[in-house]
């Protein structure tokens, strides 16, 4: 038996579409997670204790259990209670809730990165609340959070591969399909592995450049 890469060339365009879909799934779940994280972090910082306890329970539950089993639960267990989700919906809801838990923790760290002295200074200078948020708080928070958020987006892009288990046709899903037809397993999965590497390196570089130009963040991304 020898490796034959020629046979799988025909699948490359299909795989590229799958890679785009992986980025899209990760982006959608990331955006949802960012929003949940914002509310979660605000609740943890300013909320009353019952709210804090509820958010902590949510974060603990989603960070201490595997994302795969969470989606299994959404996909296989909820129908017994009368809620039927399509594979892609289950994956998106699962990934969003999971991201929300991690991003709550990340964003909370960003909230604490504003020095009190700068807030006092802004007040002394007579900044309005909006001006304070825009000119004083936002730069600190964005600069503190940007590397961690970007890295989490890359990690989520890798995480989309588990959507394949539910039959979603992103990159890994398409690889499994191609494998079922051609049986060139090693060739297919090595090509797909390289595609993930290239994909995440491109995404990391773009995020790093954007961070440098827009927010003057110097840290490395993933």
């Amino acid at each position, binding site marked *: 038996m020898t490796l034959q890469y020629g046979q799988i060339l025909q699948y490359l365009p299909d795989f590229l579409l799958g890679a785009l879909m992986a980025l899209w799934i990760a982006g959608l779940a990331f955006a949802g997670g960012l929003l949940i994280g914002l509310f979660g972090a605000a609740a943890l910082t300013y909320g009353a204790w019952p709210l804090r306890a509820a958010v902590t329970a949510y974060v603990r539950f989603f*960070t201490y259990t*595997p994302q*795969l089993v969470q989606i299994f639960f959404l996909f296989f267990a909820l129908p017994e209670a009368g809620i039927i989700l399509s594979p892609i919906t289950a994956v998106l809801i699962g990934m969003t809730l999971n991201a929300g838990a991690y991003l709550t923790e990340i964003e909370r760290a960003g909230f604490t990165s504003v020095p009190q002295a700068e807030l006092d200074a802004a007040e002394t200078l007579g900044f309005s609340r909006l001006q304070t948020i825009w000119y004083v708080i936002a730069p600190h928070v964005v600069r503190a959070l940007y590397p961690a958020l970007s890295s989490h987006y890359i990690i989520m892009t890798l995480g*989309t*591969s588990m959507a394949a288990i539910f039959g979603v046709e992103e990159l890994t899903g398409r690889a499994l399909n191609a494998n079922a037809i051609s049986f060139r*397993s*090693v060739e297919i999965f090595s090509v797909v592995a390289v595609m*993930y*590497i290239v994909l995440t390196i491109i995404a990391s570089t773009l995020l790093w450049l954007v961070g440098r130009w827009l927010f003057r963040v110097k840290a490395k991304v993933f």
Partner: protein
Amino acid sequence: MSAWDIILAEAPRFFTWWNLRFLALAVVNTLVASVAGCAMGYAAGFALAMLRLPQLMGFAPVRVLAILWVETFRRIPFLVLLLLVFFLSQFARLEAPLWAVAVTAVALRMSALAAENIRAGFETVRPTQWEAALTMNMPALTTLRRIILPQSWRVILPPSIVHVLSMVKETSLVSQIGFIEITFAAKMLTQRGFSALLTYGTALVLYFCVSWALASLGRWAERRLTLRPARLTP
């Protein structure tokens, strides 16, 4: 029937001695695969971090290879890595048992994560310490063992426990090749006709307990290591 009724109706049939023993075995399998894989991964990661030390490796090509290894294995999704190892072992006709495939995949991924973690630990020690030791004619490896490591392991240990925790969760993907860990056990029980609410719910609870224990261990280690004044670092 509401979800709660299903659970109440099925629980006596589900929590039998046989099922509990089966689930306990699955927890042990999960722990063995992740801990053994992490141990091997950390050993490899330590070697990789050593290769990247300019004080230890005079020639740059080796460092480049180490960086390539790290960047490769941390940028492949665990599921793809696992399938690749699985199919490669079939292709090479190794007849490798499933646990070996699982541990290899965990170890490969862990080696990349550990290398970064250990390198970050090494970098917290100031380069002047290397220079001082090397000036006093201390061999490079002895310097690493007696001067750099004692200072950096406080930085290395807490994230390591977080890594083991994340590996415990990622082993759930090993269910895809049929290794009987928690997720696969839940899947098998579902196929035996038990309610998915109950089986996957139990799996979630089991993972939560394992993670909770590991996270507590991590917090305890971090507190212990950081509370004591670090006299060694100037």
